[in-house]
Each structure stands twice: as C-alpha cells, then as structure tokens.
C-alpha cells in the first residue's frame, strides 16, 4: 500500500475576532491519492476555502496536520513544496496582475523555481500557452485585452508553469458562462490525464462535480459530513445536507428533474416524521 499524496489529519482552524471565535474548520480528515480529483463542496461559509488555504500554506492550521508525500508540511514551506502545490482562483481578473504582460506572468514561476535555462524560458511560456489552447503571441498581450475564459486559461497555465503535482482549484469556473465553463472543464480534464495531476476541486456547483471528480467531500459548518466516490454520493446521498445541496441545483433534463423530485420528496417525508 502506497502512502497518499496528501494526508490531512484532524485539521482545525479557529479565527479569533475581538469578542468571539469562529471555528471555520473542525476535525477535518481526508487522504488525497496521486492522480485523483477530490471535490470539496458546501455552501459559502462551510469552510471549504479555509481548507484550501491551509493546504497551500496561506495560514497554518490551529491544530491537526497536513503531510505531503509522507512529510509533514510546516508553517513555512520549502521551495520544492511550494512548487509542487499550486492554486487556480475563482476570479481570473483579480488573480492576474493587470500591469504585467501575460508572458511576464507566466515566466515568473519559471524564474522563481529556476526551471530551464534563461534562454529557454520564453519558449516554455509559448509551450504553456499552447497547452491551454491560446496562441503563442498572447505572451505580449496585457490581461485587460483577454476575455474571462482566456484569463482563466492563463491562470491555469501559470499554475502549471512550475510543474506541480497537485493543483487546488478554488471555484475555477463559477465566474464564467456555461459555454466557456464547459471548454475550461474539458481543458482541465485533458491536462489532468496528460500530466498525471492531482486536483482538489472546490466548488458549490454539484453538476460540475459530477463531471470532474472521482470522490466528493461534503462540508457543512466546518465539518466533513460525507466523503464518498462521486457516483455513490449522487446515487445514494446519505446525509440530509447532501440531499438538500443536490436538490437545489437547477435542472435541465427530465432525468435530472426526476432525480431532484425524488430527493425533495425524501426530504419532505423526513420533515413530517
């Protein structure tokens, strides 16, 4: 039995405000395996982004431990750990430096992590652009000339530049239109296969989860309420909260409507009892 790529053990985070405390995450335990896509779902305020931030080392956990490839991740990460764990954020317009050209944005991680020789780096930037489906001459453009979907592709290219092993995707498509979202999701799936990446996919859109994830972790009020393979969580959601989340998703087809109505009936029955 091999060790998980990332082991999260009894993770907790408490924020101290002036007069009271917020338990943002409580007793969160999950193992993430090489090559899988784990989705973390929940409403806003359920603690899913806090978990992401702790995985990335934005702030340390109050208690509990995260280990990467068997080694515990400290409050201060080593350079190779930072290289291996990358992030794609929700809003591409605010996560990309507006005053840097796309090429410079993509070159920065190459410089920081000393990947390739200096002369090779510009060619690498063009390769990266090609990989996310953008023409090579976009390197000379400013972010303001790109559409939302194109910007998100740049953000993905930047995360891939440092050759990570794991990418944390924090609502990567919720700011995008359906058609653009579909194209970005297809791209993410292709890249995962090609580079053997591991994804932590944070979202509240369960339809996206169904199409992307291998396993789903449902969070509510900072706690893990259900963790199961994707098809099981949709076919047989155990927790009430999971059922509520699934039944709240807007539906398109008759099949989906039937499923939602079944879930809603179940919830109503339980409320009566």
């Amino acid at each position, binding site marked *: 039995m091999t060790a998980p790529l990332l082991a999260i053990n009894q993770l907790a985070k408490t924020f101290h405000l002036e007069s009271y405390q917020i338990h943002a995450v409580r007793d969160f335990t999950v193992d993430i395996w090489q090559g899988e896509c784990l989705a973390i779902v929940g*409403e806003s305020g359920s603690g899913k982004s806090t978990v992401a931030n702790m995985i990335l080392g934005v702030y340390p956990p109050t208690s509990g431990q995260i280990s990467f490839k068997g080694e515990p991740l400290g409050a201060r990460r080593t350079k190779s750990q930072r290289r291996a764990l990358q992030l794609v954020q929700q809003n591409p317009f605010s996560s990309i430096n507006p005053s840097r050209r796309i090429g410079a944005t993509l070159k920065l991680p190459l410089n920081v992590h000393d990947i390739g020789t200096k002369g090779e780096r510009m060619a690498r930037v063009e390769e990266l652009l090609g990989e996310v489906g953008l023409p090579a001459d976009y390197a000379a453009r400013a972010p303001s000339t790109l559409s939302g979907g194109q910007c998100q592709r740049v953000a993905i290219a930047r995360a891939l530049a440092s050759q990570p092993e794991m990418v944390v995707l924090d609502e990567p498509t919720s700011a995008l239109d359906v058609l653009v979202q*579909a194209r970005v999701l297809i791209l993410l799936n292709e890249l995962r296969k090609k580079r053997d990446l591991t994804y932590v996919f944070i979202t509240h859109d369960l*339809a996206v989860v169904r*199409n992307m994830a291998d396993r789903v972790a449902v969070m509510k009020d900072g706690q893990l309420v259900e963790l199961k393979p994707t098809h099981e969580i949709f076919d047989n959601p155990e927790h009430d909260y999971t059922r509520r989340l699934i039944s709240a998703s807007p539906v398109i087809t008759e099949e989906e409507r039937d499923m939602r109505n079944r879930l809603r009936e179940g919830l109503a029955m339980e409320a009566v009892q």
Partner: protein
Amino acid sequence: MNDLTLEIIDLSLSFKGLMETTKVLHDVSLTIGQKEKVALVGESGSGKSVTARLVLGLLQAQSKTRVSGTINFEGKDLAWMTARERSQLRGTRMSMIFQDPVSALNPVYRIENQFHEVLKRKRPTISFDDARVESMAILGDVNITEPERVLKSFPFQLSGGMNQRVMIAMGLINEPTLLIADEPGTALDVTVQDQTLRLMHDMVEERGTSVFFISHNLGVVREFSDRLYVIYQGRIVEEGKTEDVFANPKHPYTRALLAAVPSITSGDTISDAINDTSAFLAPREVH
C-alpha cells in the same frame, strides 16, 4: 390595440466609438403578455442586459447610442415619451432586480430609508411611518422573520440571501406590472438561489406581475419561465415555450448551450460539439 405588457419590435442598438460604430443588437423582437414570465437567455456580451436597459429607458439618453425600433410598454411607445414620463415609469409601473444585491442597495442608508425612497416614487407624500408599516408587511411576504431588525440594518449587515429578498420586496412593493430581473441570484449559493427563485416565482404568481427574466443559467430559466428567447451576438436565434425549447432545441446555438451544461445525473457528458461555432448565426427558429 393589444394587451401585451411589453412589445419590442425590430430593436437595434449601436454604440458609437471613436473610429467605428459597433452594432450590439440586430432587429430584436419579443413580447411579454400579462402575467407572463419570459426569459432572455444568452452568454455574456450577447446583448441581454442592454435590452433590459433599453426597456427601462436608461440608454436612450446617452449621446453615444443609436437606437432604432419600437418598444411598447402597455401599448405606449417609449420613444414618444419625454424623459420625465419615462422616469416616472421606473420604480412604479416597471421595476428591476439586479444581479448583485449587495452592490445594488445603497450601503450608507438603512433599509427602512431605502424603502421609503422607493414608496415615495409612487406616492410622493407618504410618511416615514406609513412606509415602515408597508415595508414590514412585504418583508413578511418574502419570509423575513425579523422585519424590525432588517429595516434598521444597513445592507452590509445582512447576508447575500437576505439582501436579495429585500431587493425582491423593494421591486414588488409598488405593485409594478413589469418586473425586470437581471440574473437574480447568480451571486448567491445554489441553495440560497433556489430559495429566492422559488420565492420570487410565488410572489409574482400571486400578484400577477409580468417578468422579464435575464439569465445565462439554463437550469434556472427552465424552473422559472413560461416562454424563452435565446439571444446570440445581438440576434434572437430561437424562441418558444420553455418546455418545447428544452424538449426539442432546434437552433445549433441552443443545442450547444444545452450540451455545455454539466449534467448532474451522469458524468462525462460535456461534448465537443460546443466548439463548432460556425452554425451559431443560422436563422431564427420559432416553436
């Protein structure tokens, strides 16, 4: 003479730039009957929000816009009204709910003052206390359990879902005949969005308000509207009853839109068909 609440005939709009004029709407025609809920669906940049702003009469006054075509509201042509008459319609006969409730409400006034403002548009002499009584009643209708506290609050002290409900209440308090909803709830969580949409649905059914619903989310449209129009690059490409369009989408763009939505019942359903954009400008399909 007809009894349509809103009738748009061959509406075109272009923005004049420094060098060239950009045409953003091409002969858009649509109708909304009394008590009808009609959706306009399209991606960002397709022209759906400018259509709403034209109906409100907010764009006509700008010097850089060129508008042609007719917008009839309750049988009267908006173009023949004075700016003042148009302004009197807003907030009384027609009202609007915006995408992001937190930024649509004024952050420096308490909710009660903002309700008073809205009520004054219809009845300029209404007193603050009378306005409060009416606001309390309508906040009850949108399932707000502590109207006292909400009225005393500033928008930033309330959650997103709460603010959205306040917006709905404000939109409906003057009993408008037409409610324009521009992507309501897209800024909210799925569960909260689901709640507010159902609430809005019940409220307009009860009051017999016509709704012009603007969205890019097909699932939401299916839940909410009676009829829908699909808009692509400023052209209406498909129209029909909601069930008919979803059961049998005819236009390539509508099909691509439907194919792009990830399915919740089965994985791996996003197809590559969405990348073929050549057929998206095919002529309009009517059900």
